[in-house]
């Protein structure tokens, strides 16, 4: 059995928790993860027991038999509702699958609770991962899906087809009495199907034909493991509403 007092260096501790050294530095500086400092360079050493205690206090623990989800920040699936103006077209950024779930769950949950029809547009694999966490917070999830209050779909093959799809779906739902909508889109899936320029066209068309025409709040979620720094800057410029949204709901 491992000695709980064994000291790991930052590389070993990162491997133990399956997180980056950057996250460890941030958590120790914030005081949420204890560490010892040794030597003239004050290098960090971590007790195995402290790492285990830290891991156990993460909000998203795996159920028995599952692998530990990749925790790359001490995040919370936030329960407090956030008021967002209809028509807001926001971007958000994540660097882990858990980060994506964190962004999506809070946002979609707010929508369901306020009575909006909510759309999750993502690959089947990503949607499954998000829904697993959403169900923990919304036990009636299957009924919501059955009743069309939560619509899960993959992206269409082209950005034009995707815009058309949104128009048709939102128009039909509004005609059926829906008063408001939320859309969470995992944008890498659309980027994979289009060139960089076409992707910009998609964002522009979405803003013009969907975000400004329907009572909808939208989050375009960007996976920074895939998108370049330049793309992050372009996304921020194209989603100026983002800066009216709480930062902890936009970065994960």
């Amino acid at each position, binding site marked *: 059995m491992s000695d709980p007092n064994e000291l790991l260096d930052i590389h070993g501790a990162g491997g133990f928790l399956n997180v980056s050294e950057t996250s460890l530095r941030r958590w120790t*500086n914030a005081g949420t993860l204890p560490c010892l400092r040794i030597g003239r360079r004050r290098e960090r050493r971590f007790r195995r027991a402290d790492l285990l205690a830290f891991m156990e206090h993460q909000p998203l623990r795996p159920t028995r038999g599952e692998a530990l989800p990749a925790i790359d*920040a001490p995040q919370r699936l936030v329960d407090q509702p956030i008021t967002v103006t209809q028509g807001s077209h926001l971007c958000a950024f994540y660097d882990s699958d858990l980060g994506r779930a964190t962004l999506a769950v809070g946002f979609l949950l707010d929508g369901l609770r306020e009575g909006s029809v909510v759309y999750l547009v993502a690959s089947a694999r990503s949607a499954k991962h998000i829904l697993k966490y959403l169900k923990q917070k919304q036990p009636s999830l299957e009924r919501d899906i059955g009743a069309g209050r939560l619509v899960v779909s993959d992206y269409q093959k082209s950005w034009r087809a995707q815009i058309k799809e949104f128009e048709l779906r939102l128009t039909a739902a509004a005609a059926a009495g829906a008063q408001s909508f939320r859309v969470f889109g995992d944008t890498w899936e659309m980027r994979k199907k289009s060139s960089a320029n076409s992707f910009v066209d998609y964002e522009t068309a979405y803003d013009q034909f969907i975000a400004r025409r329907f009572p909808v709040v939208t989050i375009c979620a960007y996976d920074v*493991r895939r998108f370049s720094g330049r793309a992050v800057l372009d996304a921020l410029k194209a989603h100026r509403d983002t800066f009216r949204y709480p930062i902890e709901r936009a970065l994960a």
Partner: protein
Amino acid sequence: MGLSTEPVAAIHGNHLCGIYGTDAGRLDLAVPFLLEGLEKGSVCFLVAPSTVLKDVAEAMKEKRQSLDSDIKAGRLILTEHQKTPAAQCRFFEIAMKKAEDEGVESFRVVGDMWGLRLLVSASEMVELELGFESLIVPNFPVVALCAYDARKFTGVELLDALKDHADTFKFPMRMLAD
């Protein structure tokens, strides 16, 4: 695009990140921020590689004729990055303490972060940001702008930068440049 000279409504203690995608965008971020600091009587630091120091100083000179005397009098300090995050924080501590003892009441800092990234790893960059946030921001009347070149930094590094500069979301539109 011409350089904006509109004031930035920043307050002491703001630790902001700016993101730019062109050399002109870097000037758009740095020049008005530093000029405003000089106008307000702040001591201003620009920490960047030598070529960037030269470009920014030349652009500032077009807007402020007294720039050479500002540099000579120590009101504008142009310097390259120290070799480690700890040394960089120590540099700011010593320089700001000395300036405060001489009666200076406020500071502005622009750091062109790619210059530091060339010297240290991505995780050590975070070390500097956290050190600045805990050692400099609470202890000195400073407004700091860490400028990130989107052409050089990865998406993951920019997300880290945004997470480490929560103040940025209070002043977003002045913090993004072409």
